[in-house]
C-alpha cells in the first residue's frame, strides 16, 4: 500500500483484531485490564506491547497513529490533543536542556509566540531567520547548541514553500534534525520525510480531519536520525522510566530504543507526563476524515488555484499570495516558483491570501460582506473560511515577524472548502465590490 489514497483508508487497522469490523471501534476506556501480574509488569516495563492506560496509549488512537505514520512515510507516530501540543512536544523533545532551534519568522502565530517568548522560560531559544530557504543564513546560525531546524512545508498565510530537501541536506551535514510542520499541504500533497525531513508535525484539526469538528495533533518520526550523538544528552542519559532498577539494568532512550528513541521519548516523557493526550473520539473523527483526504484536498486545491487566478484580476485586490500559481506559470523562473514545481507538483493546498487597497475598514467590510465564506480562524475545513490574520491568527506575533510573514493589516486569508468554486468566486466578488461601494 504505497499510495496516499489507499493508505488513508486502510493503513494501521487490522479488522481481524476487532471482530472483523470494517471500521475501527471507539475505545472509550480510560484503563485496560492487564490480565496477569506478569503481563502487567511487562506492559509497565515496556517489554510487551499492549494497553494499560489511555494517557499512554489507546487502541483507537493507535490506529490513527499508525495510519498517519504510513501516510507520511514515517516509522511511527504519536497523536496528541492539538497541533500546538505536537509542535511544542516535538521541539522541546529535541531542544530541552538549553538547546537552540533555527526557524523562519513566517511560522504560524502560536508557534512564534511559543518559540519567541515562552520556550526561553524553559531555557530553549530560537534563532529566527527571515528566509528559511536562504541556506547560507541558516548555516551561519548552526552552532554547538543547535538541536533542530524547524520549518513549515507551506507557510501560512503566505504559502511560501520550504525547500525541505536542501534544508535536510544542510541540517544533516551538521548533525542536526529537520522538523517540518506539514499541516497546510497534508501528506496528500507533500511528504517531508520523502525529501529528507526527520520529524513531521501536524495540526490534524485541519486538512487531516477536514470537517472542522475535532482538535488534534500528531508527531511522526522518520526513524532515521541518530539521537544518540553527544549533541542530545537527554537521549543518552540513563532514565529510570526505561530501566529496570531492581535488576540494576540502566538504559537511556537511545540505548533502549535505537531508531525509536525520539518517538518513545515523546510518548513516555511528553505525552505521559505533560498529558496532552488525544481522545479516542477525536481520533475516530480524524480516521473518518482521513478516508476522504485525497478527494477533499485535491478539490480544495483545484478551487484555491482557480480563486487565486481570479483574484489577480479583481479591482482593489493589490496582491495575491498563492505559490501554487507557479504551477500554471511556467515562465516564472523565480526560485520560489522552481521550488513549487519541483516539490509540490500537485499543488500547495487550500490556503491563499490577498491584500486589498485601503485598510482596516475595507477588510472589515469584506469579512462582514461574505455569505458563503465563514469568518472562522481555522483552515482545512470542508467549509470555506475567511479571516484577517493581522487581527486574529497572528495577533500575538511581533510586528517585525508579521512583516516578514507578509501579514499586513489589509491582508485577508482564505481556506477554500468544498463548495462549488463559482459560488465562492461570486461571494468574494460581491463582498469586495460591496467594500468599495460599487
Amino acid at each position, binding site marked *: 500500500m504505497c499510495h496516499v489514497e489507499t493508505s488513508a483508508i486502510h493503513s494501521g487497522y487490522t*479488522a*481481524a*483484531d*476487532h*471482530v*472483523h*469490523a*470494517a*471500521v*475501527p*471501534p*471507539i*475505545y*472509550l*476506556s*480510560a*484503563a*485496560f*485490564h*492487564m*490480565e496477569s501480574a506478569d503481563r502487567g509488569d511487562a506492559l509497565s516495563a515496556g517489554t510487551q506491547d*499492549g*494497553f*494499560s492506560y489511555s494517557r499512554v496509549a489507546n*487502541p*483507537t488512537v493507535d490506529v490513527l497513529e499508525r495510519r498517519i505514520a504510513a501516510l507520511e512515510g514515517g516509522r511511527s507516530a504519536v497523536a496528541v490533543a492539538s497541533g500546538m501540543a505536537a509542535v511544542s512536544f516535538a521541539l522541546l523533545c529535541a531542544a530541552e536542556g538549553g538547546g537552540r532551534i533555527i526557524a523562519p519568522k513566517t511560522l504560524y502565530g502560536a508557534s512564534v509566540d511559543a518559540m519567541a517568548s515562552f520556550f526561553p522560560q524553559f531555557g530553549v531559544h530560537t534563532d529566527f531567520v527571515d528566509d528559511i530557504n536562504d541556506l547560507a543564513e541558516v548555516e551561519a546560525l548552526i552552532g554547538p547548541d543547535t538541536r533542530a531546524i524547524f520549518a513549515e512545508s507551506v507557510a501560512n498565510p503566505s504559502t511560501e514553500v520550504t525547500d525541505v530537501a536542501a534544508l535536510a541536506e544542510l541540517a544533516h551535514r551538521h548533525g542536526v534534525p529537520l522538523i517540518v510542520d506539514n499541516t497546510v499541504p497534508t501528506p496528500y500533497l507533500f511528504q517531508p520525510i520523502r525529501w529528507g525531513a526527520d520529524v513531521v508535525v501536524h495540526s490534524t484539526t485541519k486538512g487531516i480531519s477536514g470537517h472542522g469538528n475535532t482538535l488534534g495533533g500528531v508527531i511522526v518520526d522518520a526513524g532515521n536520525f541518530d539521537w544518540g550523538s553527544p549533541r542530545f544528552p537527554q537521549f543518552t542519559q540513563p532514565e529510570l522510566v526505561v530501566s529496570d532498577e531492581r535488576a540494576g539494568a540502566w538504559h537511556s532512550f537511545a540505548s533502549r530504543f535505537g531508531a525509536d528513541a525520539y518517538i518513545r521519548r515523546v510518548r513516555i516523557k511528553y505525552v505521559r507526563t505533560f498529558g496532552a493526550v488525544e481522545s479516542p473520539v477525536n481520533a*475516530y473523527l480524524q480516521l473518518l476524515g482521513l478516508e476522504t483526504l485525497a478527494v477533499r484536498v485535491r478539490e480544495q486545491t483545484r478551487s484555491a488555484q482557480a480563486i487565486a487566478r481570479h483574484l489577480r484580476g479583481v479591482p482593489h485586490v493589490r496582491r495575491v499570495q498563492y505559490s501554487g500559481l507557479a504551477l500554471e506559470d511556467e515562465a516564472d523562473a523565480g526560485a520560489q516558483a522552481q521550488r513549487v514545481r519541483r516539490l509540490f507538483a500537485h499543488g500547495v493546498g487550500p490556503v491563499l491570501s490577498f491584500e486589498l487597497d485601503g485598510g482596516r475598514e475595507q477588510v472589515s467590510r469584506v469579512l462582514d460582506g461574505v455569505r458563503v465564506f465563514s469568518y472562522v480562524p481555522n483552515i482545512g475545513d470542508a467549509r470555506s473560511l475567511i479571516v484577517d490574520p493581522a487581527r486574529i491568527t497572528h495577533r500575538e506575533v511581533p510586528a517585525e515577524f508579521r512583516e516578514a510573514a507578509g501579514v499586513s493589516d489589509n491582508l485577508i486569508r482564505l481556506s477554500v472548502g468544498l463548495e462549488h468554486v463559482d459560488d465562492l468566486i461570486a461571494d468574494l466578488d460581491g463582498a469586495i465590490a460591496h467594500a468599495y461601494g460599487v
Partner: protein
Amino acid sequence: MTQLNTKLVHGLPLGTDTTGAVNPPIYNSSTYAFETVESMPRWDYARSGNPTREFLERQIAQLEHGTRGFAFASGLAAIHAVLSIFAPNDRIVVGANIYGGTYSLFNEHFRRWGLLSTPVDTQDESALERAVRGDDLTPPARAVYVETLTNPLLQVNDIAAIARIAHRYGAIVIVDNTFVTPYLQQPLDLGADIVLHSATKYLAGHSDVIAGLAVVRDDALGERVYYAQNRLGGVLAPAECDTVRRGIQTLALRLERQQENALAVAQHLLAHPYVRDVHYPGIHGEPVAAKGLRGCGGVLSFEVAPGIDPADVLDHLRVFRLAVSLGAVESLAELPARMTHFELPRSERLKVGITDELIRLSIGIEDVRDLIDDLDQAFDVAQEHARRRSTDDLYAVLAI
C-alpha cells in the same frame, strides 16, 4: 455477580475484546469482514447485530430476568417491533390510559393493518377477564398490553394478577416497564412474557439519547421479536447503545434519590391548599409491595385546585423545566392534556381521569428543598393571577 446493583455496573462482557479495555468499545462499523466464504463472522452486518448493541441487549435481558434482549431506536420502535409479531385479526387487550404515542400506534397505525385492540381498565379484574375472554363473536385476545404504572395517573397494575387472567385464555402479557425499570420490578418474574422500555427515560437517565428496549421470557418469542427487529430495522445505533449502557451504570443511585425526592414532593403537594389531589403510588395508603413493586419511581401527578390555571403554575417554574419525557436527572413538568396525551380524544381522556387541570412531574436528583420551593413560588404566582381574575370578574359584573 448475583446482585442487581453489581449487574448494573458490569453487564455481561462478550469475551471478544483483545485490548483489556474496561469499557466495551463503540463499533460504528456497518459491516464485518468474512475471513472466508465458509467462515461466518460472529457479526456480519450491524443491523442484524453488532458487539456494542449486543452488550446492551445482553445486559437488559440479564436485568429483566429474560432470555434475550433487543435494542431499538426509540421506545415506540420497540413497541412497533413487538406488536409486529401478531397477525391481522389478532386482538390485544390494552390498558385504558396508556401513553398517548402507544395509543396512537394501536388505534391509528395497527388498526389499519387489522390488528384489533380492546381498551380496558386494568385495575378492574373482572372487566379485564371479560375483555380477554371475548364472547360468542369475539375469539379470546392474543395478548394483554399494560404499563407497570399507568401514565400519568400512576395506578399500579398488578402484573401477577393480570398474567394469571391472560394466561388462562392463552394470551401473552406485554408490559411497558419504563416507569419503574428492573431496579424496582421484573415483570417477567410476575408472569409477563415480554417487557418493553423507553430507555430514553430512567435507564439512560440524562435526557441525552432516544432508545427503546425489549426483553422476552423464552426463545420462541425471542425468534419472533428478532425477526421483527432485523426486518423492520428500527435498531439502536452503537454510540447510542453505549450511552444507554453508561446510564444504566448509575441507575440505582439516580432512582433511589428520585424516589426519595418524589415522595417528599408528593407529601408536600398533598398538604398544599392549591392542590386538589395527588397521584403517586401508595400516597393514599394503597398497597404497593403486594403488587410486586420494590419502590414507586420518580413520577407523580396532581390536579390544581379550582380557580388555579395549571398553565400559570407551569409557566412560572424556574427549576423544573417545562418538557415532555421523564426519568432524567433534571426535574421536568408538563401538562398531559396538552403535551403527552393530546392524541387521546378529550372525552377518552376525561373518562380515564386525565383532566385539563392535571400536571405531571418527573422528579430529578436535585435538592428536594429547591424543588418544593420552586413549586410553592409558582403556586403563589398562579394564585395571585387567580385572585386578580376573580376581582376583574367582579368588576365586570358590577359594571353591568
